[in-house]
Each structure stands twice: as C-alpha cells, then as structure tokens.
C-alpha cells in the first residue's frame, strides 16, 4: 500500500460483531458458569413480610443438616458498613438509609434477607434455608409513594422522618405559577409512570474468593461497573484499601441499569469467603431478582401545562412523588432529580417551568436506574401533556410540536432547569421524516373514514431529547454525585504491531469490542483483526465508571481515541528521528508516517512500534514502547433526539390494542456501527412499548409483590412486539471529536408515550383524554365505557 492509497474506513460500517462467535456456540462465560475449587453455595432466608421486626432466628435445624457449613445473620456482619449511597439529590438534605449485607432487627420489604446458609451445593443450601426458623412481629406497611409521606403512614426508618428521602426542586416556581395563573388554556393531568422490573435475562450474583495470606479478595460479579464496585466495597463497606480487591465482570447477560448498583450480595459473599476461607457463590433465582434487585420508574405526578389558544406553550408545573423503595440504592436519588426534572421540558422552548420531587421510602423493592433512568419519565410526561394540550385546543399534535420546538439556531440551548446546554439538534427534520414514513396526512383521512365504519385507529407521535455521555465530573459533582464521571483507556502497540486496548467501560450486550476496534483500526491505520479490546477486570484495565447512561462511546470511546492520538504523536516523533527529517514535515496517515512530499519515504506503525519496543535507536529523552493512557472528562453531555410514530387499532368491544406500525427516526450523532445502533434502538423500543402495553410491577397493600415471577410480570414475547421500521438523521455532537451522542436508551425514552399517544388518539371519539399505563384491554374497555 502506498501512502496515498486509502485504507478502507471501518467507522460507519455495519460490521457483524466480533463478540458473537463464542456466544452463539455456548462458550460465553457468565457468572453462574464459573466454578472454583472448594466453592460453597449460598441460599438466603428472606422475609415473607413487607415490614416486620425480627424477634428471633433459630438456625439449629439447618446447621444439623449434612453439607451445611454455616448459617449467618445480619448481626454477624455488623463489622462491615451498610452499602453506600453514592448519588444524593443535589442541594437539599437527603435521608439515605441504604441496606446492610443482611437485615438486622427489622425487615422493610418482602424478600429482605435475614439469614444466609452456606453449604456444599445449591440444593443443600436451599433445603437448609427452609429449615431456618425466623419469628417476626409484623408491622403495617405502605407501598405507595404519595401515601407514604402522608401523616399517619407507617414509619419505615427512624433516620428518615415521614419516610421522606429528599424534597428537591428545579426551575422557576414563581414564573411557572404566573404562567399558569394567566394562561388562556391550562391542561391538568395526574400521570402515573408505573413501576417496572428491568429483567435482564441473566439474574444477578457474585462469587468471592479470599486469600488470607495477602488479605486480598477476588470477586466475580454481574456488574456494569466493576471499578466502581471495587471502590465502594473496599473504601466504604469494608474499610480496606481498594488494592485489596480485584473485581471481575465476566460476560454479563444484560443489565439495563439493574447491574450498576452495589448490592448486598457483593458484601456478604466477600464477608463469608473471608470468614470461611473458601470461595462462595451466590446467584439469585428469578423470583429473588424480582423481589430484591432494583426496579425502575414508579412516579406519581400532577402536571399542569399552560399555553395559548394558537398553540404556544407558556408554562409547565410538575409535582412528582418518586418511590425509592425500602432502602436507598446506590444512585437512587439522582434519577428522579437531575436526570428527570432538569430535562422535563424536552424538545420545547417553554419559558416557565418548575418541578418539585418528593422521594419516598415504601415497603417495596429499591428503585434505581432502569434503561433511560429519569429521562423516560420526563419524556413520557411532556409528550403526554403536549398531546393533551393539542387535543384541548383542537390543533394537530404535529403542528403543536413544530410550533414549540427549540430551533437549530438556538443551540447550544440552555433550558433554564440547571442542565448543561443541549449540544446540538435539529428536531423538525426528524419529525417530518417519521411522519412521512408513516404517511401521516393520508392516515388522518383514512382514520376519519374508518371511524365511520366503527373502527378505531390512532396515531401517536413522540419527539424526544435525552441526556447521554453523562459527565463532566465538575458538573456532576454539583449534582450530588459522589465521584467523577470521566473515563480512561490505555492503548499499546506491541512489538509485532498488534494493538491492545484496555478500557474501564463494561459492555454487556452493546458490542463495544466491535465498535471500539473499528475506531482504533481507522485512527491508527492498522488491520481491524490486529486490534484487541480488553475489559471487565479491574486488574489490567484502567479505572472506569462503567457502562450506563449511553456514555461508553461518547466518554469511554473518546478516551480510547485520545490515547490513539498520543500514540500517533509519539510515532511521528520517532519517525522523524528515524527518517532524519524535521518533525514538522512528518505526516501520519493510513497507519504510516512519512515525509511530506515524499510518501515513499516512510515507516508503518508496525515498524515504528518495533523500533519503539526494541529501543535501539530512539530520539534523546524518548521512553521505549508505544503505550499511552488517557483520562477523558468531556466538557458536556450529549443530547440525542428523534421522533417516533406508531399506529394502533383498538377493538372497542374487547379493549384490545393492535400495534400496526412502529416507526423510529433517531439522531444519535455520527454512527460508528449502524448495525449495532439499530439493534440498540430495537431493544429499547421493545422495553418502552412493553411499558405502554404490558408491564407493571404490582404490590398489594400489604407489600406482597403480585407480579413476582415471569408468569405474572409480562415481559413481551416475539409475538407481542411488532416489526420496527427505523431511519435516522445525523446531527454530529460538537462535544467530542467523534461527533457521537449515544444510542443505548433512546428507544426506551421515546416509545412508551409514542404508543400511549396513539391509543389515546384512537379513543378520542369516546372522550378519552388520558389513560394510565399499561393500557391493558380491561383499562381501555373501562375508559371506553366511562367506568
């Protein structure tokens, strides 16, 4: 290859994933696949009550069972601290009560672990757990966030009076009050964003091994953020240096947020491994995952939107009760505050907005980030209210959106809610494209016709913006986040020219190995096959905050690019020396450094790597080896956007909804691998439309989870999800040199309201103005019949 021949660029190409061969042949390595010599198994004794005092625990029968090694209770583990509360609501007093490794003295939810049995195998452990006798004194329970903070509600934690976790606000209350008081039109609605269970297909767990000679642990964990867990478990829970713990996330079978958090099992497996001197394994079964691992959403909101008769939105006032569950999960308070309130006005210029959020403890599973985390709740709220407003003034909902969109010339746009400015956007083309694919004008005529025949079709629009690439650290510090949010990467070009990249990001389905390798191969001009991406083990990867918030490309990927830039810089210096040329005259292109004007006089990156590695002839002062690390803290978040449109038909006899079409036009900035981007969008949409149509975690008043297994909680099957039509626009992000924004959560953020708006549009002839999710046939039938 001569220097002028361009190597074919990989960025932008839909390469199939390099991760897949092992996963499609059954050779993945997930947590439960790991077996260590002498490993013991843990089964938990969990509370059947939502709220109770623990009177006594008698483990004698369990201990007498052959194969049982030990039984421990919460009191045995008082030498370690509770789990950390890492993100508290900003600028206000928080009352964090995180869980302990095992409950002590009292339980606060069904499934709260009170004792653990350690045994030679999982069958024995489970049998013995049934023999542990626990006496409880039941207490009254509360499951609803709004009721929990009312006077006279059962009190869950002494340290949190009135069950309040925080009271937080953003925006301008006086302005919003005034806008609403003086408005031509005000629409008001109670909007419930029901509780969801993330349901990664792999449940959670951990395996701990302890070496008494060095005092070091190794913990394998189902984790989206092993570096963070290492820090939290050592510095906060055990009070030991972080160098004493190595965390490894093997293949992780989906996370969707649920595997971001620092869970009690990480602590009790570590504690037991140290105590017993043998490795221990804990893996939840699905019903344990449903009872105890984190849930998402669960907001009750009173919303008022003000506007003019000709469709201008003038104000928004929002009061939300956010259910936090029985304890404070790791980043629980950041989700319904910063990631919700600060983006409540969505894609619209709303001059006066105000949000008040009350976080409440209840006797339910902890609530924390679930795909989208705060942004789906915000987007659902504003997109429902805008439709509600359009219906009220009799204007086409697409028109109302156009009229209020933030315009391209407004960027960077400050929404006045304490967020960093939206980086870039061009909302109308995405809306127009989606409407065109849907055949919007045609559809409206057809809808009219069909209504006369007693058929009820509806079309729903959802224009969204979200926050990705969540950083910069200096801003997040002010948001109550207890750490930084930069990412780091190391890139090494070995003597043979092979490139090894280590990253602190933690892919669990996102295809980051493929995406990152595409970037590195292009930037460095080496064959794609020569680039290896390593991740998942805190020993051997630089620190990273993990993969969530659609930040691994926009932050983690850029850290890799910057390391590559440094490698190139050093390679150029070395080339100048070897070619006896002026450094300023060296061009690095297509994996080759050459003298400007004489492309034949050059050295490939492989030759330079070898020269740097053997170090026979380096310029004075240059260290051997091409090996560079970057710590990247972006100047802003990124703000992907788009419009989704869906078409439904509702059967008025049965209340059944048929989702006829689903169209997604997304703008996530530049796309590195469109195949992977599309896959992320598909999966996100399935989760959001499932919220609209099927899913909802239901507790009865006593705090029993009625949707406690996959039998009752309606994760959709293939037949319950429609064909999804995708398209995109491209508005590069000015925030980072790759121009990328993020795509992991967009589908979920856009889709619930897209489907709900379509259903409510279909039901307009029946006078239905709003409907809570999920829109089950029963709910729809009742709405049609005014019940």
């Amino acid at each position, binding site marked *: 290859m001569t220097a002028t021949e361009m190597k074919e660029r990989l960025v932008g190409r839909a390469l199939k994933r390099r991760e897949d061969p092992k996963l499609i*042949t*059954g050779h993945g390595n997930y947590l*439960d696949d790991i077996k260590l010599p002498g490993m013991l198994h843990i089964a938990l004794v969990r509370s059947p009550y939502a709220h109770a005092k623990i009177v006594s625990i008698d483990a004698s029968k369990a201990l007498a069972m052959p194969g049982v090694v030990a039984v421990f209770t919460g009191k045995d583990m008082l030498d370690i601290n509770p789990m950390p509360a890492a993100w508290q609501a900003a600028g206000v007093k928080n009352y964090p009560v995180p869980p302990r490794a095992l409950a002590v003295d009292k339980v606060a939810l069904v499934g709260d672990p009170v004792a653990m049995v350690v045994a030679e195998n999982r069958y024995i452990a489970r049998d013995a757990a049934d023999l542990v006798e626990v006496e409880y004194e039941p207490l009254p329970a509360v499951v609803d966030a709004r009721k929990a903070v009312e006077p006279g509600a059962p009190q869950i934690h002494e340290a949190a009076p009135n069950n309040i976790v925080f009271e937080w606000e953003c925006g301008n209350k006086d302005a919003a009050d005034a806008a609403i008081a003086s408005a031509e039109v005000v629409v008001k609605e109670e909007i419930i964003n029901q509780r969801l269970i993330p349901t990664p297909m792999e449940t959670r767990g951990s395996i701990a091994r302890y070496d008494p000679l060095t005092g070091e642990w190794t913990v394998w964990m189902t984790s989206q953020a092993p570096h963070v867990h290492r820090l939290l478990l050592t510095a906060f829970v055990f009070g030991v240096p972080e160098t004493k713990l190595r965390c490894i996330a093997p*293949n992780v079978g989906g996370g969707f947020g649920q595997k971001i958090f620092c869970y009690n099992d990480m602590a009790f497996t570590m504690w037991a491994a140290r105590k017993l001197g043998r490795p221990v394994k804990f893996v939840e079964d699905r019903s344990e995952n449903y009872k105890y691992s984190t849930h998402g959403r669960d907001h009750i909101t009173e919303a008022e939107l003000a506007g003019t008769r000709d469709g201008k939105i003038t104000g928004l006032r929002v009061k939300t009760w956010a259910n936090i569950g029985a304890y404070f999960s790791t980043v629980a308070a950041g989700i319904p505050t910063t990631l919700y309130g600060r983006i409540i006005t969505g894609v619209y210029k709303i001059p006066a907005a105000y949000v008040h959020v009350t976080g409440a403890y209840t006797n339910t599973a902890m609530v924390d980030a679930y795909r989208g985390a705060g942004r789906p709740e915000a987007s659902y709220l504003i997109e429902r209210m805008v439709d509600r407003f359009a219906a009220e003034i009799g204007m086409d909902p697409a028109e109302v959106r156009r009229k209020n969109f933030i315009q391209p010339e407004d960027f960077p746009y400050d929404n006045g809610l304490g967020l960093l400015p939206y980086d870039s956007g061009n909302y109308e083309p995405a809306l127009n494209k989606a409407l065109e694919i849907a055949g919007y004008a045609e559809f409206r005529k057809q809808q009219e016709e069909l209504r006369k025949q007693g058929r009820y079709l509806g079309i729903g629009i959802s224009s969204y913006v979200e926050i990705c690439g969540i950083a910069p650290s200096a801003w997040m510090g002010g948001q109550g986040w207890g750490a930084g949010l930069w990412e780091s990467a190391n890139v090494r070009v070995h003597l043979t020219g092979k490139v090894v990249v280590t990253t602190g990001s933690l892919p669990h389905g996102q295809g980051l190995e493929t995406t990152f390798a595409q970037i590195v191969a292009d930037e460095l001009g080496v064959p794609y096959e020569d680039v290896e991406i390593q991740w998942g083990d805190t020993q051997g990867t630089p620190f990273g905050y993990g993969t969530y918030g659609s930040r691994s490309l926009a932050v983690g990927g850029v850290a890799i690019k910057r390391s590559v830039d440094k490698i190139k810089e050093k390679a150029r210096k070395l080339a100048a020396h070897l070619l006896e040329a002026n450094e300023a005259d060296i061009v690095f292109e297509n994996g080759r450094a050459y003298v400007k004007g004489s492309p034949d006089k050059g050295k490939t990156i492989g030759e330079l790597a070898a020269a740097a590695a053997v170090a026979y002839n380096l310029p004075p002062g240059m260290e051997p080896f091409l090996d560079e690390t970057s710590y990247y803290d972006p100047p802003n978040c990124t703000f992907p956007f788009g419009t989704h449109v869906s078409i439904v038909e509702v059967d008025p006899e049965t209340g059944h909804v048929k989702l006829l079409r689903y169209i997604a036009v997304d703008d996530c900035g530049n796309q590195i691998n469109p195949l992977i981007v599309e*896959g992320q969008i598909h999966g996100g949409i399935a989760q959001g439309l499932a919220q609209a149509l099927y899913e909802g975690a239901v507790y009865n008043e006593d705090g029993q989870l009625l949707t406690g297994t996959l039998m009752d909680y309606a994760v959709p099957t293939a037949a319950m999800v429609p064909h999804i039509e995708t398209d995109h626009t491209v508005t590069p992000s000015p925030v980072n040199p790759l121009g990328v924004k993020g795509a992991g959560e967009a589908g979920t953020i856009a889709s619930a309201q897209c489907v709900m708006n379509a259903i409510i549009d279909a039901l307009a002839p029946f006078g239905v103005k709003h409907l809570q999710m999920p829109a089950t046939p029963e709910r729809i039938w009742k709405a049609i019949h005014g019940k």
Partner: protein
Amino acid sequence: MTTITVTVNGIRYTSEVEPRLLLVHYLREHLNLTGTHIGCDTSQCGACVVHINGVSVKSCTTLAVQCDGAEITTIEGLSSDGQLHPLQEGFWEKHGLQCGFCTPGMIMAAADLLKRNPNPTEEEIRHGLEGNLCRCTGYENIVRAVRYAAEKMAAAQAAD
C-alpha cells in the same frame, strides 16, 4: 441416587444422580456444558432449551432421570465439523443477539421450529418462539436471523 445413561452431543455418559436433579443442572454442573442457561424459575424464559431425542425441551423443567437412554443435543453440539449451524450463522450475520444470554435457548428453539416448518413467515417465527424471552433485541433481528437460516437451509437442500 439413580444411575442414568445419556448421550449428550454424541458422547455417552453414565452418571449417578439424585432423582430430583434437574436436567439443566445435570448439564451445567455435572457435564460442565454451561452454554445452556437458566433465566427463570417458572419455565417461562426458554434460556434452557435443549433437544431431547430431536425435540426442543426446557431443561429446567425436566429431571435428569427422565432422560435415561435419551439423546440430548445442547448448543455446544449444534455445529458440526467446525461449521456453524445456519442459525448460528444467521444470528451472527443479522445481529440477532446482544448480551447473548437468551441466545443458546433461542437458537435451539428456532432449530426445532425450522425442522417443523422449514419456511416460516415472520408471523410464524414470532409465534413459534413464544416460549423464549429476549430482553435485548426487541426480536426484530432474531426474526431476520431465523429467516436467514431458513433461506440458507433451503438453498443448501436445493443444491443437494
């Protein structure tokens, strides 16, 4: 303890097992075939699907002792002579997997579906895979993967 003899992926095993031992645990813990996964405790998710005597079965709801004398194929035994099965190829080509946790069960269920219906429509694929849950893909690319395999298998048959 009961003695069973089973053939798994072409290899014969004789084992002493507890009568209550689930087939999925037998495969994973006794034979170290960890490609077959466990995603639920109510027989809903299909992560555990294997073939028993050529028919897809949820191995979390089957006792090892019921399989005495049976021929079992797991995901590890699906490809032959280092050649990926057309379904494995289809899932790779069409991005039919993300985290990969549901994939072994999904592929085994789809293999059974294609045996019964070699040329399924999109709708038949969606209904045929109703016993398998995937939380990552939204199923769009799983449908494409199965169609890819159906076409590839039909082409191979036509060439024979």
